[in-house]
């Protein structure tokens, strides 16, 4: 087999995967972190308890999380068309990826934020902080290291999801693996994509761990 002709294909696939995963991660954190904060803050032991709101939000998040990704992919097609104007390609795949990862990251962020010692919140309150100041001066900085591990975990999930999304027209390594590896029996291509996916996951985990350790002063 002539690898040199495959390399551009594999590189393009890798690039598509990275693009999907990175952009999705960006939006996932952008939507998921506020959602996680909202879940934490409105909890009955939180800064601004709002029982009914918290239960409804929690139920929505759980429902979204229990939906199998492959079903979500199909369900959101009309929505995707509305948002990005098309339903195929890497950019279109970002919509279901963000929708799937956001509730996941919201829960992960919530559990990180909850780990912050309540005494710190009380100390901040005793100094006259607003709830908002407590969120960005206490909760987020104090859970940053744990949040970063959560982001790494989310990126890893997104790498997995993106391979699935790729299979139904999103491009990327998943797409390559299916089209060449599965449908055309090009086992080497399949193996190459799997190796790259493994390296990506390992790399993300390693980077996450290192960064989290750097940040933590505990």
């Amino acid at each position: 087999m002539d690898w040199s002709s495959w390399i551009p294909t594999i590189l393009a696939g890798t690039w598509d995967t990275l693009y999907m995963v990175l952009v999705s991660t960006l939006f996932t954190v952008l939507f998921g972190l506020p959602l996680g904060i909202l879940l934490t803050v409105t909890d009955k032991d939180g800064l601004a308890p709002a029982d009914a709101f918290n239960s409804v939000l929690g139920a929505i998040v759980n429902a979204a999380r229990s939906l199998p990704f492959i079903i979500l992919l199909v369900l959101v097609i009309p929505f995707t068309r509305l948002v990005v104007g098309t339903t195929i390609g890497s950019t279109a795949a970002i919509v279901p990826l963000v929708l799937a990862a956001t509730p996941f990251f919201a829960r992960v962020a919530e559990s990180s934020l909850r780990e912050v010692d309540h005494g710190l919140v009380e100390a901040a309150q005793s100094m006259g902080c607003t709830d908002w100041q407590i969120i960005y001066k206490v909760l987020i900085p104090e859970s940053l290291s744990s949040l970063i591990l959560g982001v790494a975990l989310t990126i890893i999930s997104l790498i997995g999801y993106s391979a699935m999304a790729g299979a139904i027209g999103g491009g990327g390594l998943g797409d390559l693996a299916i089209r060449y590896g599965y449908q055309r029996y090009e086992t080497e291509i399949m193996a190459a994509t799997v190796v790259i996916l493994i390296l990506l996951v390992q790399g993300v985990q390693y980077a996450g761990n290192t960064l989290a350790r750097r940040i933590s002063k505990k």
Partner: protein
Amino acid sequence: MIEVIDLKKNYSLKDQIITALDGVTLTVEAGEIFGVVGLSGAGKSTLIRCINMLEKPTSGTIVVNGQEVTSLPPAELRKARQRIGMIFQHFNLLSSRTVAQNIAFPLEIVNYPKEKRKDRIAELLSLVGLMEKANAYPSQLSGGQKQRVGIARALASEPEVLLSDEATSALDPQTTTSILELLRDLNRRLGLTILLITHEMNVIRQICDRVAVLQDGRIIEQGTIDELITRPDSLISRALLPQFEKQTISSEATSVTITFMGEAADQPVLASLVRNYDIDVNIIAGNLQKIGKNRVGKLQVEISGKQVNAALLHLMNLGLRVEKN
């Protein structure tokens, strides 16, 4: 400086109501160190947390710095809290910030002028004796050092009042003493009013001017240390002074317990007694200690001879407390 009037606090837990505070009334004067002591579960933390409204009272009124905190709208309550410092048993320092950054925290909250922050932080660090630790993280400090940071942080916005919730309960005895000395020093130098709660009698002994004993959400005793010490039936005197067990060496002699306070504790009272009266004194047990500003001694003695009653009368006239055993 702090006035608490008929404070009540109930917690409802599922189907039952827990009364944590059941009508507490007390006044903390400006510039004094007021201690609230009581067993675990007595309601001490609830009381001190009501003072800055970390806990919302069920009923009652609390006035701090002339402001009725119990009826303040949220924004003004936050302003009021900036004038009430608080320190905690577990220090509650931000682990992600250095010592200097922790102290900067309240300055950020009160919008202290940026260009003056550095100087203010240096000033506070020197106040608590931690200049060389400015860039350390809390995890690199000992318990006593962490509490010093907590104190510096609490004082950063120049509060009139400091609330201390078991601030030395997680510290060893030596460190406790050094922290209490620091608080005493700050009280004198800055005129800082301190309300502290503790379950340790030692804390009361070392720094409090006045004390209240809390039991089951009620104050059962209150007064200056000096006056409570001289009352033999007070809980404080029983807790702070040693309780000698009753023992008789000679059945003919009169066994008495003498409590010395203030000047009398520094005088050779017994020696002059034996010189001036026709008696013999046999010391059975004794103790001399410092309580607050005063030295307080307690002696169990047996007195025999012809002039026992006259000698005892003499002691009482000197202002000593004499109890027959």
